């Protein structure tokens, strides 16, 4: 089990082992979290790399207050996506880019996968902003309740309640669309 305080200290002091660990553990998670929000591979790659570079820039001022380091990183990612969406309003309604799905799978399967992603994005889009934030961090980002609570600045109880109400709404929507 990693000592989060020691790890946070390594990140703050720009220890290369700590940064390699941070990257290996969170790069795929941050990428997924961003990819389902910006919906195309090139932007997702750019923004994910930017998140880590921004984290590196701001790491000397990072203070560990008991929260997992992931919470700090995802807060940067969240702000990065918000800024991107603000500057790039034209892409909000674009369909999911098939390049998001792995190049290794057959084109037909890729089309099916991207249409599933599109469905999920549209279903999640019908949630309230607070519900959406929790679901994106939990499912796309793969964060725990504790980490999610730190990112969105709510109590764990509140996040669990939001998760429950969001899942109920998603179930109804997906059932209505014949997906369940």
């Amino acid at each position, binding site marked *: 089990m990693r000592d989060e305080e020691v790890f946070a200290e390594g990140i703050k002091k*720009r220890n*290369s082992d700590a*940064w*390699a660990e941070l*990257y*290996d553990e969170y*790069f*795929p998670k941050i*990428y*997924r979290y961003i*990819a*389902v929000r910006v919906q195309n*591979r*090139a*932007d*997702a*790659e*750019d923004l*994910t*790399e*930017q998140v*880590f*570079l921004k984290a*590196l820039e701001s790491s000397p001022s990072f203070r560990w207050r008991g929260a997992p380091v992931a919470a700090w990183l995802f807060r940067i990612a969240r702000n990065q996506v918000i800024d991107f969406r603000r*500057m*790039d*309003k*034209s*892409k909000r*309604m*674009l369909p999911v880019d098939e390049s*998001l*799905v*792995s*190049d290794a799978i057959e084109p037909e399967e890729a089309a099916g*996968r991207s249409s*599933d*992603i599109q*469905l*999920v994005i549209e279903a999640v889009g019908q949630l309230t902003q607070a519900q959406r934030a929790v*679901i994106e961090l*939990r*499912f*796309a980002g*793969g964060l*725990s*309740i504790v980490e999610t609570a730190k990112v969105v600045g709510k109590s764990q*109880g509140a996040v*669990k*309640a939001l*998760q*429950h109400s969001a*899942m*109920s709404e*998603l*179930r109804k929507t*997906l*059932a209505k669309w014949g*997906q*369940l």
Partner: protein
Amino acid sequence: MSRDFNDILDACLDRITQRGDSIEQCLESYPDQADELEPLLRAAIFMKEASTVEPRPEFQRMARARLLSAVAEKKEKERGRRLPFWSWQRRWAVALSVVLALVIMSGGTVAAATNSLPGDLLYPVKTTTERVQAFFTFGKEAKANLHITLAERRIAEIEALADRERSIPASVINTMNVETDRAIALANHDGSFSTETIAKLVRLTDEQRMMLARMVERTSLEVQLRFRLALRRAMEAYNQAVVLRERLHNMQNMEIEPSSNKPLSVENEILIKPGCPPSGPKKVCGTPGISMLGGYYNSPDGRVFF
């Protein structure tokens, strides 16, 4: 809804999405809540599977290398900043020696170095001369002007290297961005810069993003990523420069000419995308631009937006 059920749902979601348990295993643990849990967990599985998008391994590897090299670079700079007193004395000594050397030399070497490019024998003379110049430049506006000049030099060097089909070191691109950011930071901090300096800043950032956009188009895929990151940074710098100019105009109570550059906004521009775009503002079918490489678009006048 009871708080207990929220906890049970959360525990099951963790078991299914993180530990790979099946829905049935979870329902067995909570038979009293099974009817309510099952549909939610089925929706969760669909959500989890649909959200599984993975980054390209080659991109992940390259981004990892870039990040760790940036970590090492920062660490190195930190060490430089923490030099003990005697090191500062040594720095002064080095600076003064270079000044003396510059005075003693007939000027021929320095003049020759002015046109040198990264990788040339005389390039270190050029950068040392610049460092000395920076050392002896006082006043925020004068420093900002020097940063602008140095950023312009890096632009010219990058273009010259590309024209000669020579490799472009990442440090030159990075230095160009850093010099620009420093000029903007000084302008932001001071707020009393002249119209000329701010206009130079706008021209510099405009020129910079145009050059970087051209580089994205003409360089190999591996180098393109570096230029794309620099382009994004340059576009941010351009927006900041335009905001600075608007602030200055407002302070002076002057009208901004309608033809002046404005902060980048896709909504006000005509976009040229490869083929016919599916949607977006003012659709135009056009020739492929660098939009294919990362969400940037060429406008008819050659400017670049994202």
